[in-house]
């Protein structure tokens, strides 16, 4: 080790991830000032109002759903899943990038994550909230949702633990709980910062209660660091399992086009792909409006774009493999299902999704595209649309045309399908912008550790 060439050490020095010139104080002030100010930017007002308006649309459509039942949607046998499950899979996939950034990148010691993990985790929470609504609303009698849990009841019946739909209940509820805990633990030191910096009595009281008496003691930090690592270690297999279990909802069924062993990795890659797209869609306007370019730098955008490109290529590979398997298996139903997807009534959706998910991300190979936030923003929107279409095509085409041509039926969404979907986008925006206004969107204490002055200089020690 001693005769290692110094050249190698120099090359291994990580390049700084945040702009030079920050101090512990200025980092704290800049991030906390977004929350602890009376002034609310017009951008925030606009986004929040849009979110609130769409949230009202959601309440309207859900009220109608409760009154009239799932018949207000376009779902009819054989297409029983339609938009609701498409949206469920899409939203939960978006959530996955947040956990990936906060947990997997923490374990891999990728320090650049420190300035985007907080809002990515918040994104996860709100995306899971949107996702979780759909299976419930889709149940027909949503107010009986607790029947899915095993509890002693007078009916004397219990859930079927051999069904992937019951696995989903456990996977998604565990995911929501663990994401919340991870996010809250991450917030505790920053809540203490807000408590100490708030001048308003009321704000100080609320942040103080949430911080629970956190006092930045070395004894706290000692347990805290262990807790973050352990939670990251638990969240990592969890996030991979959640979309795997979601894909089991499909693969365990014998429907052609669903019954396939490569769905779990394919779904997980797609989830991370769409999740990073959402991270970019949120981060690019936020950093511009709040002047956070020094903390969420070009490097963060570049890295996220690279993750998007890599997972996009995995998704593209999965499409190829899906087609290859359908042909190579020699199974007439599999190949007919694939052929119907490509040339049948949903061919437009299929080819549009291929364009969005496979062709569009190829531009991310170029550094010039990755260096332009506006282009990245547009590319991410394209990916989000593409991934939604992918879920739609998988679910609807396979159900609409399965084994028996006499039972085929085309699915057409009604306006309430669209209203519910747009409504959850509203719920997401509403919750996300409340979070931006009320809690620090960047983890303050983790950014402090990134500063060069956070290093302990050991020279001159006795």
């Amino acid at each position, binding site marked *: 080790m001693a005769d290692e060439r110094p050249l190698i050490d120099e090359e291994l020095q990580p390049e700084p991830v945040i702009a030079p010139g920050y101090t512990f104080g200025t980092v704290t002030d800049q991030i906390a000032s977004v929350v602890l100010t009376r002034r609310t930017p017009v951008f925030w007002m606009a986004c929040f109002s849009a979110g609130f308006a769409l949230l009202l649309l959601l309440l309207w459509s859900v009220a109608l759903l409760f009154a009239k039942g799932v018949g207000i949607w376009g779902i009819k046998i054989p297409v029983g899943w339609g938009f609701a499950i498409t949206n469920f899979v899409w939203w939960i996939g978006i959530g996955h990038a947040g956990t990936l950034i906060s947990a997997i990148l923490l374990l891999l010691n990728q320090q650049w994550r420190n300035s985007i993990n907080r809002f990515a985790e918040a994104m996860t929470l709100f995306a899971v909230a949107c996702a979780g609504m759909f299976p419930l609303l889709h149940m027909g009698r949503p107010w009986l949702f607790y029947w899915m849990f095993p509890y002693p009841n007078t009916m004397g019946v219990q859930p079927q633990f051999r069904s992937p739909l019951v696995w989903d209940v456990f996977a998604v509820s565990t995911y929501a709980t663990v994401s919340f805990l991870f996010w809250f*633990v991450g917030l505790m030191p920053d809540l203490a*910062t807000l408590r100490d910096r708030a001048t308003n009595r009321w704000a100080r009281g609320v942040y103080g209660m949430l911080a629970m008496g956190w*006092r930045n003691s070395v004894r706290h*930090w000692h*347990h805290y660091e262990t807790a973050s690592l352990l*939670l990251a270690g638990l969240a990592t297999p969890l996030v991979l399992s959640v979309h795997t279990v979601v894909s089991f909802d499909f693969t365990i069924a014998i429907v052609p086009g669903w019954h396939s062993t490569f769905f779990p990795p394919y779904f997980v890659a797609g989830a991370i792909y769409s999740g990073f797209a959402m991270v970019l869609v949120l981060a690019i306007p936020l950093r511009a409006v709040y002047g956070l370019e020094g903390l969420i730098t070009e490097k963060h955008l570049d890295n996220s774009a690279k993750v998007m490109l890599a997972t996009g290529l995995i998704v593209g590979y999965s499409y190829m493999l899906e087609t290859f398997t359908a042909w190579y298996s020699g199974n007439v139903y599999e190949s007919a299902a694939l052929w119907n997807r490509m040339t049948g009534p949903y061919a437009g959706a299929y080819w549009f999704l291929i364009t969005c998910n496979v062709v569009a991300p190829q531009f991310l190979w170029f550094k010039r595209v990755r260096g332009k936030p506006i282009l990245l923003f547009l590319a991410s929107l394209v990916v989000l649309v593409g991934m939604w279409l992918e879920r739609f095509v998988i679910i609807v085409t396979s159900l609409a045309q399965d084994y028996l041509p006499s039972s085929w039926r085309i699915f057409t969404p009604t306006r309430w399908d669209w209203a519910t979907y747009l409504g959850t986008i509203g719920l997401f925006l509403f919750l996300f912008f409340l979070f931006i206004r009320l809690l620090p969107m960047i983890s303050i204490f983790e950014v402090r550790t990134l500063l060069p002055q956070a*290093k*302990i*200089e050991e020279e001159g020690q006795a």
Partner: protein
Amino acid sequence: MRVRSVRPPIYGVMAEFNNPTALVNAAREARARGYRRLDAYTPFPIEELAEVLHLPKSKLPLIVLIGGILGGLTGYLMQYYVTVIYFPINIGGRPLHSWPMYIVITFELTILFAAISAVLGLLGLCGLPMPYHPVFNVPRFARASRSRFFLCIQATDPLFDRKATEDFLESLEPREVAEVAH
């Protein structure tokens, strides 16, 4: 040694430093002088401090392990009880104890219980929630969550002497030394 039965007149003496290196050096110096009831307050985690102050290893991993094992057992036994004893359904003579089908929920509950015990364990080991603590009586202590680094020697330390300890802390060239009222 037990805490003295007579409550000392103050909680301790606190010194404020500008940067993490000064704090780590000060903590090391205080340990070398024989002070044992020390605490340091920093705006971000500093690994070296835990070493310097000889903090025992965190018990949290053990708590999480126990939580995880309990979660796994709960998941498996719950499914076993429901599918084999409470609500058996015979489908074409397939075995009731179909353990491969139990894996997913067993796994999910393992993670769930482990994560919940990690958070409760963290709060328990840190003694949170704590509505009141004397260190907040020092007005400048609010900066511990922003940009300053504090070292506190508690009055319960056997070597503690109001004057001598304050002089010792002054000798470490802090920005300021303050007494912490109860």
